[in-house]
């Protein structure tokens, strides 16, 4: 996918967090977390990208960087060819920063905290409309809101808008949040763990709703999850891609059938193992050598996964594997993808 027809594209972005020092903090040693480490990606029109990975691997940070809510430490993000952060600071950008702002929206994980508890639903929904459609009449705005609310199944809308967030269930709140982001007619919506807080029985419905609206509104989704089966549901239903993150890097990316069906990276394989299926026996032997994730401020050398990798060899300790193409838009950051790599001659470092 070239960046011409992509809505969003990031090129070699990194985000670093350094614990900040106060006036008297000059003595403290600084710790740096590379939450996102040199990632390049493109999101096209009507695209769905699903990010998965363990907690703290940088999914949210990458997502926020993509929608321009987090300034990258290095690298660039462009929205329809316009560099987002240049648009913010520069003069006369082709697309104004506020236009970009509107086009990239977010749905948070926790529906409970995504709405101001002191505002009625109507107020929360009116505000963005007021900001972005100042010419619209009040009635007009309400009409839009009601229509959307009813579209997501919150009927009667007149009743719902008069409630406060705590008077709604988690699923209802999440729908309101979805409506709020859709009101702005965005190009990309970042759904950061948007369904994790919902009861299992409601997740499928919510995911269906989101995908349905994607068709309707022509939006792209960046869908973050730590649950492979949910990710797979979304990705498969929308025909989108899935990207597996590990310690700030995308270690495997590709169409769902390939990543899930034929995972190349040992980490993806471990994730797959960790996602049990209702039916069918699975192997109980741990496919990783260490259960715990390494300290993100002090990441392992070479391939970051090597201390946990059951297939690690000596070369993995010293060399950082780049992205290897496994065909059909499927890539993995593992030497094993390359049949000719020196990896195969390197001694194993797995003891048992």
């Amino acid at each position, binding site marked *: 996918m070239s960046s011409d027809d992509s809505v969003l594209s990031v090129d070699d972005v990194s985000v670093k967090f350094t614990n*900040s*020092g*106060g*006036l*008297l*903090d000059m003595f403290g040693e600084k710790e740096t977390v590379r939450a996102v480490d040199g990632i390049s990606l493109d999101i096209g029109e009507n695209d769905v990208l699903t990010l998965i990975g363990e907690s703290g691997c940088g999914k949210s940070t990458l997502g926020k960087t993509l*929608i321009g*809510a987090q300034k990258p430490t290095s690298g660039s993000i462009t929205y329809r060819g316009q560099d987002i952060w240049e648009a913010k600071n520069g003069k006369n950008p082709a697309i104004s920063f*506020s236009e970009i*702002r*509107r086009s*990239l*929206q*977010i749905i*948070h*994980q*926790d529906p*409970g*905290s*995504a*709405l*101001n*508890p*002191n*505002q*009625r639903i*109507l*107020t*929360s929904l*009116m*505000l*963005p409309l*007021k*900001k*972005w459609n100042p010419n619209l009449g*009040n009635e007009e705005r309400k009409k839009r809101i009601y229509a959307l609310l009813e579209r997501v199944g919150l009927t009667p809308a007149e009743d719902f808008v008069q409630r*406060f*967030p*705590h*008077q*709604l*269930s*988690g699923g*209802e709140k999440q729908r309101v*949040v979805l409506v*709020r982001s859709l009101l*702005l007619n965005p190009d990309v919506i970042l759904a950061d763990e948007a369904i994790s*807080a919902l009861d299992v029985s409601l997740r499928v419905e919510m995911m269906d709703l989101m995908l349905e609206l994607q068709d309707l509104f022509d939006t792209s989704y960046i869908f973050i999850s730590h649950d492979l089966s949910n990710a797979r549901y979304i990705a498969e239903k929308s025909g989108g891609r899935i990207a597996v993150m590990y310690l700030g890097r995308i270690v495997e990316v590709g169409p769902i059938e390939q990543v899930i069906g034929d995972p190349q990276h040992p980490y993806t394989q471990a994730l797959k193992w960790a996602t049990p299926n209702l039916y069918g026996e699975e192997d109980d032997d741990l496919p990783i050598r260490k259960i715990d994730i390494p300290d993100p401020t002090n990441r392992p050398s070479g391939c970051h996964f090597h201390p946990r990798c059951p297939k690690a060899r000596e070369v993995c300790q010293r060399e950082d594997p780049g992205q290897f193409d496994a065909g059909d838009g499927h890539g993995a950051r593992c030497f094993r993808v390359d049949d000719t790599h020196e990896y195969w001659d390197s001694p194993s470092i797995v003891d048992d």
Partner: protein
Amino acid sequence: MSDAHSDDFDLEDLYDEGIEPDTESSSERLKRAIEMNVLAPARIAIADWRALVGGAILAFFLLMGTVGVWLVKRPTSGDAPVLAAPFESLAYPLGTDVFGQPIHAQLIHATPGMFKMIFAGAVVSVGFAAIVGVVAGFEHGSRIDSFLMTITDVVITIPGLPLIIVITAIFQPENPYIVGVFLGIDNWPGLARTVRSQVLSIREESYVEASEIMGIPMTSILRRDILSQLMPYVMINGALTSRRIIFESVGLYFLGILPFTTFNWGVMMNLAYEGNALTRPDMLPWMVAPMVCIFLLSFGLVLLSQGLDSLFNVRLRARHVNSSKKRTSKSNTANASQGD
């Protein structure tokens, strides 16, 4: 989803912002302001007995300071027999002092000054704290933040009472507003820290981030998303600050450190004490009456703050029941930091 607390009192109802925010006229805005600043707290007060009693006491003193001063003549020496005992005459139900001034009238005419002092002190310290706290919280991690917090920590560690004593000894303020301001000097840092941590935790709430991402202007976010959440803390602390200002001001008048020009409870105590009221039973009412007033008013303020605290906490709890379990513990730590 209806939870166990849904039938509890809802503060949210109080912040009803009206349906047509953009067509809001100035009179409606005024109405809303009254709603938020007067009626809402009043309704809160009614919902908890402590707040109710506290509010009633406060209202009583407010009436004393506003209507009372009109109804009861400003006492002058020789109004009545000197050192008359209480409950002898309706003209001086609490007795009189050595000047023959009715004690009840002195109490009443001392109230406006007291409230001016409280008002100035509370406004200054709470206002300052709120500004510092919000700015620091908003600029979290920046130089401004660390600068403000360093100042706050410095002021927090300077012992307040001695500092105030030194300052008032030097400037000899007579105007109650200025006295209040001086007394507010040592009061703000604790609250500023609380406000900052509140702002930090509110900023963590995703709806603030959502507002930012939706491009809502910062001022609007501040007002709608952050300040409204801070109101409870500010109000509770306002009540506690007021109590402190009463204690300190009366103490300084009592000791004769602050100069005085008009009636004041501390001054009454000072004159009575200096006049050896403790060894002269006929002077005791002169000494005890202001003590009772101080007790009542600060009792009222403490009750009010307690009542508000529990009300707001119920609300916070109610909210957290609905949100994820992870959050509850976070808000607990935030709550823990407030208190006198």
